[in-house]
């Protein structure tokens, strides 16, 4: 016969020890797996991209990156200019202000268009199921970027 209190106490201790051991073992395994994973490798694993598809999709990504980077720099510059103008009350609603705001809105629209064109070109190379999943996930991020732009 065992005291119920002691049995409960020991069981809880064992449970906590088992929880910590299993969770940290799994966490270590996950961390090691993701540590050296590039975003493109993650993409391949997440969307079950085959070797044959991988080459075409990698070429699409490689071709798109410089264009995306240029657009990113242009967008950041315009946003900074607009912020500087907005800080100066004397420049409020001046042609420079209006022009910078219009240019930023154009860049945001262009960014979304480039993004949509790119993800559709990538999705076209994937399996139908993975393609639908990829597009659905990317749509979520598109909504987020629209929200960021309007903020």
């Amino acid at each position, binding site marked *: 016969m065992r005291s119920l209190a002691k049995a409960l106490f020991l069981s809880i201790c064992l449970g906590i020890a088992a929880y910590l051991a299993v969770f940290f073992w799994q966490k270590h395994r996950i961390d090691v797996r993701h540590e050296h994973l590039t*975003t493109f490798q993650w993409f391949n694993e997440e969307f079950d991209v085959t070797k044959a598809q991988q080459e075409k999709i990698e070429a699409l990504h490689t071709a798109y990156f410089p264009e995306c980077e240029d657009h990113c720099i242009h967008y950041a510059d315009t946003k900074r200019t607009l912020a500087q103008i907005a800080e100066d009350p004397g420049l409020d609603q001046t042609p420079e202000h209006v022009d910078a705001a219009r240019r930023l809105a154009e860049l945001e629209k262009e960014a979304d268009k480039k993004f949509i064109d790119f993800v559709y070109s990538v999705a076209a190379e994937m399996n139908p199921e993975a393609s639908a999943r990829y597009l659905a996930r990317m749509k979520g991020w598109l909504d987020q970027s629209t929200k960021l732009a309007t903020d």
Partner: protein
Amino acid sequence: MKEDDFSKQLDHALDGLRRDSAADNLDNFEREVWAEIALRDDHRLPRLRRLLADGLPTISTTAATSVAISTVFLAVGMAFSRANTYVREVSHSMEERYVASIHPILRSESHAVEGVAHE
């Protein structure tokens, strides 16, 4: 006797008895006072300890082992479930990095966040 009067008298008697250690010839009231003192001095922790030691029922070794095994299984299940949540978090973070590399606005925001982090 009213409750307040009783408490006052009790406190008074308590003080008196604490000052006078020779409490051999106690009348009934004083005995009651000592009983009250014993109750008041009895802290919650020793009571709880006594309850755990003596107050709870005993169980068979088989039942105790079953409880321990069930708890371990439950804990392992919870750990795997938490690990699944963690892998989703890591995957979401990878997805965020991937999207930041292909969307100019998100890329710009990501650079801005990195810039703030470096500062």
